[in-house]
């Protein structure tokens, strides 16, 4: 209503008639956005909710990149996993320069001078400013077998002939740390996934049975879970890992360790499944299914599990870091994976000595990806947990 139409105080308002056709559903009509929201599936809603958690989104992208990188490890790493550089033992990280004596050259590294310091009995490396080696992208370098199948020699980056590029230094055998970290990711990242797959299955089956049947089954499962949870995890892992025969092949040891990590991890998940199922079992749709003669297996997996799944995935994501840390700790102690398998824990095993921290601090760099991955999993798990119940 325009201001001039407002009558002075005390006078009646003019009669107003809308000329538009009458619509009875105007109040309940949805805007397109609302409609999209109400029609969206649960997973769609979860995705929208998840997207709002910025940190979780960034972490998810980071994890996707990390897992993507293990497909092309050989291409990304400048050197081969086991390639030794005898002239560069315990070499410190080299830095990439852009300018040489004030003029622009593009990315390059200087050569290295090597001197044995007889007083302290250590190798001293210094930059040799007279030699310049350019860094090239997408070049051919050391030959490798891609996925152990095809011969190839393409690398993401390498240096001109004669030079070396150790961005994160080398270890006691002169192996490039960066290349080793990249291939360590293959083992360390997958061990978490395979482990969680095993413990996830155990949790769903055991927790599902306990939650659905309750009674005696529930009582027994509850006690088992309590006992397993009251046990300090790492000593038990250590004891189980010590059982693995030394004669096993590296691959078997890898699976053995994964199973050990999983066997002690399912308890928390199983508890979550059980308590959720106990609640869902009482819902009308579950009774309806039972009345119609559905078997317990069908009711659990067809009707009850979908309601639990989103929560489960969130909790599973939160327990992957635990497994990665577990593998790292076991390998660090020499009880887990052993060379020639290369995982982040195996790499850190080299840094067991206090002298290493003092003299060759770059040997503890493999801890950086460990921390990043674990943080990322935690953030993604947080985001998923918030998004797990989008109807709230």
């Amino acid at each position, binding site marked *: 209503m325009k201001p001039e139409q407002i009558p002075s105080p005390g006078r009646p308002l003019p009669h107003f008639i809308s000329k538009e056709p009458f619509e009875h559903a105007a109040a309940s009509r949805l805007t397109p956005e609302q409609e999209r929201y109400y029609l969206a599936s649960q997973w769609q809603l979860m995705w929208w909710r998840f997207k709002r958690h910025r940190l979780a989104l960034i972490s998810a992208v980071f994890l996707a990149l990390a897992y993507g990188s293990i497909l092309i490890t050989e291409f990304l790493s400048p050197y081969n996993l086991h390639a030794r550089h005898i002239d560069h033992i315990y070499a410190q990280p080299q830095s990439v320069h852009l300018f040489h004596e004030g003029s622009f050259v593009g990315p390059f590294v200087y050569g290295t001078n090597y001197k044995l310091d007889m007083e302290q009995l250590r190798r001293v490396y210094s930059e040799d400013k007279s030699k310049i080696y350019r860094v090239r992208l997408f070049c051919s370098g050391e030959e490798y077998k891609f996925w152990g199948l095809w011969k190839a020699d393409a690398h993401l980056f390498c240096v001109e002939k004669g030079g070396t590029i150790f961005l994160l230094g080398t270890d006691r055998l002169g192996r490039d740390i960066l290349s080793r970290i990249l291939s360590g990711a293959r083992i360390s990242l997958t061990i978490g996934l395979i482990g969680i797959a095993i413990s996830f299955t155990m949790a769903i089956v055991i927790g599902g049975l306990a939650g659905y049947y309750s009674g005696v089954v529930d009582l027994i499962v509850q006690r088992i879970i309590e006992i397993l949870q009251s046990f*300090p995890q790492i000593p038990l892992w250590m004891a189980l890992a*010590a059982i693995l025969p030394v004669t096993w092949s590296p691959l078997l040891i890898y699976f053995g360790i994964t199973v050990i990590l999983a066997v002690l991890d399912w308890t928390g998940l199983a508890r979550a499944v059980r*308590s959720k199922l106990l609640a869902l079992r009482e819902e009308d749709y579950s009774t309806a299914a039972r009345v119609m003669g559905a078997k317990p297996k069908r009711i659990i997996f067809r009707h009850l599990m979908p309601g639990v799944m989103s929560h489960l995935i969130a909790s599973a994501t939160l327990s992957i870091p635990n497994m990665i840390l577990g593998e790292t700790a076991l390998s660090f102690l020499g009880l887990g994976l052993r060379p020639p398998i290369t995982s982040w824990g195996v790499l850190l095993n080299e840094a067991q000595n206090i002298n290493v921290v003092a003299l060759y601090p770059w040997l503890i760099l493999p801890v950086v990806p460990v921390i990043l991955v*674990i943080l990322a999993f935690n953030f993604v798990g947080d985001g998923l947990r918030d998004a797990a119940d989008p109807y709230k």
Partner: protein
Amino acid sequence: MIGYVLRRLFLMVPTLLVISMIVFTIIELPPGDYLESYVAELQSRGETVNEEEIEFLREQYGFGEPVLQRYVEWVWGMLHGNFGYSFEYRLPVADVLGDRVLLTVVVSLATVLFTWIVAFPIGIYSATHQYSWGDYGLTFVGLLGLATPNFLLALVLLYLANVWFGTSIGGLMEPEYLDQPWSWGKLQSVLEHLWIPVVVVGTAGTAGLARRLRANLLDELQKQYVTTARAKGLSPGKVLIKYPLRAAMNFFVSDIGHLLPTIISGAELTAIVLSLPTTGPILIGALQSQDMYLAGSFLMFLALLTTVGVLISDLALAALDPRIRLEGGQAR
């Protein structure tokens, strides 16, 4: 209350029995036994193996007997304070354990205290200042502590302590106090060394505890009685301390059941890196050389420590919170 304590103590028996079965299975699983590896070691050194001695040892420690009988004897012995015989140290297990058990308990208790002292203010601050920069910062630092492997933090702290304070590396006291009777100087030296394992082991537990406290306190703060208290004009500090904090305190005590296994796990691992005279380094040695009674008794001891800890926390909780009914209702 006495009835409740007795019932809880009675319930511990089957739990410990099952744990002892698990432990015994684990130490029985590896093929061969200590004597076999001992003989192999002697042969590899080119020494002659005294068949009679081996046979005598085999007889003495009952390696030939069936598994079930050995299990019963082991458990029976433990009930009478006889923890078996360590083959590697050639001593009764109780003598090998000795001081180390005490030190493990000391380190664990100190860590629990440290965790509480640090986590409590952090949890309260994050809950009362939800979504502030302080909250985010503390959460991030806590997560960082959670994500850093304990053993590596131990190494770095050890190095820094050596560079900055001149603390000797490894062990729980200066070398000259080893095997000395307890004195003021020794205590001081122990305290000087104790903080590293305590901080290292504490970081992981602290982060978890602070986050759980934050969540719990946030739940309490949204309840109506808080609004009522605020509406009737109580100062914010008083509102916080008087009601929600008391409710959260219960959680603090009951959470020890979560905290203790984490701390003991971490303590074992850190002890190995720092070569502390606690149970960690011996455990790993015993596991590797199949010194089964030593390893088994250690694992049992750790399990007992957690079970007793959980029991104490439950009793404290029952004493603290009048709402908790001692007569068992079905908990769901």
